[in-house]
């Protein structure tokens, strides 16, 4: 596949038209997405109109921006003005936001073209995209397996070659985990570098929007477009977004890399072997690679599964049938609210609302929410300590490669364990990337994860670029679209 950056260059120079680019990708989606089910909404007409605008800008000598004419898929928990935004939940049935998320505005300002909204676990709660009210997405490498989640639609869309770029959101691994399972690049930025305005909240203190792409360079380019201060988000950092593209080729010579035992031990043997090969690659490229132990990371998962549901229980209160979305009538307002929420939310969302409500309840707050906050501080301090010795940390992204659809839906604890390697970065607010690094014995993609301190995105991308350059060649997925090509 032509990379997003190359596509944009061709469009800007007039070598190809945005209309042509968009038509090819829409055709690929129409042909292949029936099997993948990455999209819950495809915006044929809007994308065509936008492509024509880009083409006339180019014709008039104007520069449409760094992502000129590049088709982008957007996770359906990001608000798009006048277009259904569902979070893949029945409760938002029929709701069209009257505004665009800040990231969607920034995509437009950069010349990118939003071609559709992608599937997710309802309200981003899940690790397989099976919790979508619209049915699961299929892993392009193995259609009977999950693409991961919750941004499974965005990961699968890029993996199948339906779009060169996609946006996802990552609360406990929802970008990196599906990126690993689908063999694409996925990055979670530092908390506060990308505006959350227009991202429908799951757990506000953990949520962060980030890029999916086939290559590290494309992920860095998309990150640069969406990052930067936004006055509409009070948690947005008031500083320029770190530039990442220009230092992509700087290598890892002299970098101190720690391989965190807690992010490798206990993962599937093939995944562990992938991480060790990745460590060798960095060692060979001049980094100092050392194994290390950060015991506190083991407490990340339980802390996460108290904090995230606690915030979610509050964030999801507003879906009460009074103002928008689904309403199931009742004799009085309380009955209406109960009936609406009973009918509108899926089982996993209800489970987390109950968990979170319990964790915040009088008499339990200190033991659950309060304790989890202390663990969060502990993990932040443990990372700080580790980063005195290391510039970056290396580990697996996921404990296993893609698992079969239906395998874990009846066992929430098993499903939650999919996030064990990714949640620490969310708790600390740090950046982390998942890079494809070969396949397991069944030909399923393996992802390795690079973690770094806050605002060290340039470093994360640099290390990822070195891994990418030495990774085993990517094989073509079973469900590859006509637009798919090896990166």
């Amino acid at each position: 596949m032509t990379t997003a950056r190359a596509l944009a260059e061709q469009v800007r120079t007039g070598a190809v038209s945005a209309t042509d680019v968009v038509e090819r990708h829409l055709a690929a989606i129409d042909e292949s997405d029936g099997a993948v089910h990455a999209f819950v909404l495809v915006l044929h007409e809007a994308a065509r109109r936008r492509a024509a605008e880009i083409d006339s800008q180019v014709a008039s000598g104007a520069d449409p921006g760094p992502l000129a004419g590049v088709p982008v898929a957007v996770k359906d928990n990001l608000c798009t003005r006048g277009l259904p935004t569902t979070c893949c939940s029945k409760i938002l049935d029929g709701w069209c936001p009257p505004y665009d998320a800040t990231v969607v505005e920034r995509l437009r300002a950069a010349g990118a073209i939003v071609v559709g909204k992608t599937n997710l676990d309802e309200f981003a709660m899940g690790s397989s995209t099976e919790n979508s009210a619209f049915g699961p997405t299929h892993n392009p490498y193995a259609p009977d397996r999950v693409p991961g989640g919750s941004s499974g639609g965005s990961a699968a869309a890029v993996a199948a070659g339906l779009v060169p770029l996609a946006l996802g959101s990552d609360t406990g691994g929802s970008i990196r985990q599906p990126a690993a399972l689908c063999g694409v690049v996925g990055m979670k930025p530092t908390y506060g570098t990308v505006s959350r305005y227009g991202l429908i909240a799951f757990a506000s203190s953990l949520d962060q929007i980030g890029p999916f792409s086939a290559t590290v360079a494309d992920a860095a380019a998309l990150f640069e477009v969406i990052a930067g201060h936004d006055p509409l988000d009070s948690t947005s950092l008031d500083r320029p977004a770190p530039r990442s593209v220009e230092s992509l080729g700087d290598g890892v010579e002299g970098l101190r890399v720690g391989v965190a035992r807690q992010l490798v031990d206990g993962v599937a043997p093939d995944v562990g072997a992938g991480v060790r090969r990745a460590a060798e690659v960095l060692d060979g490229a001049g980094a100092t690679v050392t194994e290390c132990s950060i015991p506190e990371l083991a407490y990340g998962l339980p802390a996460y599964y108290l904090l995230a549901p606690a915030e979610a229980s509050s964030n999801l209160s507003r879906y009460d049938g009074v103002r928008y979305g689904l309403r199931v009538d009742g004799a009085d307002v309380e009955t209406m609210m109960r009936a609406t929420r009973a009918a509108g939310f899926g089982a996993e969302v209800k489970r987390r609302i109950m968990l979170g409500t319990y964790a915040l309840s009088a008499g339990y707050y200190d033991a659950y929410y309060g304790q989890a906050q202390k663990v969060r501080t502990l993990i932040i301090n443990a990372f700080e300590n580790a980063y005195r010795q290391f510039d970056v940390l290396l580990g697996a992204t996921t404990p296993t490669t893609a698992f079969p659809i239906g395998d874990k839906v009846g066992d929430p604890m098993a499903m939650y364990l999919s996030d064990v390697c990714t949640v620490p970065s969310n708790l600390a607010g740090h950046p982390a990337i998942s890079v494809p690094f070969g396949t397991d014995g069944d030909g399923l993609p393996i992802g390795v994860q690079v973690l770094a301190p806050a605002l060290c995105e340039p470093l994360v991308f640099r290390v990822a670029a070195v891994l990418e350059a030495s990774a085993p060649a990517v094989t073509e997925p079973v469900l590859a679209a006509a637009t798919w090509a090896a990166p």
Partner: protein
Amino acid sequence: MSAAPAAPGDWEPVIGLEVHCELRTATKLFCGCRNAFGDEPNTNICPVCLGLPGSLPVLNAVAVEFAMRIGTALRCDIRPSLFHRKNYFYPDMPKDYQISQFDEPINANGWLELPDGTRVGVERAHMEEDTGKTTHVGGGGRIHDARHSLVDYNRAGVPLVEIVSRPDIRSAAQARLYAEELRGILVATGASDGRMEEGSLRVDANVSVRRPDAEFGTRCEIKNLNSLRSLVRAIEYEIGRQIEVLESGGTVLQQTRHWDEDRGETGALRSKEEAFDYRYFPEPDLVRLDPDAGWRADVAASVGAMPADRRAALAALLGPEGFSAARTDQIATVVENGLDGLMTAVVEAGIGAPLALARTANEASADPQRARALDPDTYAALLRMEQDGTLSATQTKELLGELLERGGDPAELARRHGYQALAADSLVEVVDEIVAAHPEEWARYGDGDDKLTGFFTGLVMKATQGKANGKAVAAELRRRRG
């Protein structure tokens, strides 16, 4: 039940008030929507104050400044603070949680002094957002028997400061004094328009009774107090109810009670056991609020003197010998109407403080808006004519009315009315004639019958068509008698 007589001698009421004050900002607390009362329903709304999915709050700096002004005026510690979410389901609350400050309020540990000298502690004065407004259609106008409800979200997200007093108030009358005094302070800071009838100020009362010097009794919180009158009535009723419960051997249950204005009684809304578990936790969409020292100092410096200080300043003008209960009330009126600056200016220009106070508290306060715009020099010129006897009190009052309404020069106005005509020597002539015409009465007056002062004054007034100054006439009569 019928209301028992309020608080017989051996029971002491213990009262604390929670006052919600809408801040007079141009825009709402977390978005740019207009903060205005009485607009067409659901016109001042946006994704943020409607709590639409994906929207995020951004704190209004002017609201923070108003909150700090209130804190300064109430002599609170102004501290780093944190917003929490208060979670409960209600249709007029767009997010089904309210963003409010919880255990780390911006203002804490203040006090205010009532005109009666009582000092009432202020536990905290924290910031929060207002809810929308629900109108229940059908039934009794309450949610449980309504046919349907209409919600106006114009008020949702309007900035509030909730001022929580300590339980230092001991009677319904004192609760009223506190509410009035607090209202005066809030208006003086510029943070509030003080309009209770528009809901700008809303009061909840916590009431309990105890035997003097015993531990506090169980309290009830009374809601729906929409005026000072209902505040007083509800507290009196509630005191009586609790005493009756206790004296008949019962126990007061901790409850939230609703004041029914028409029936004149409180009714239980919910008990302690039914109280909401609000599941407060820190609002992750906002960062810690920590105004820097420079900003805090600027705000503190911009807050002018509060009513209590201003009353003290006027009392000082009168001096200790000028003190009386009536004058205390007059001083309160002058301060309440914002006319203390005017009064001080004329006193400084040489007008006696008692005269300045009387005219300002009575005549000028009849039209405080115009009086506040009155030029102090003009006002002083007018009062000087009364002071030196050129004008009678009646004439001065009349001219003051004209000055307020149409403006002008007091001397010129007096001339136009012919009030100027009766100068001191013409008064002497008039008195000459009258004394000559009533020798018998004059002889009795000369023997010390002071009751005849009125008789002669009346005749002088009649002869001068009221232009004479009563005091000047009396003085002239006394001078002649020797």
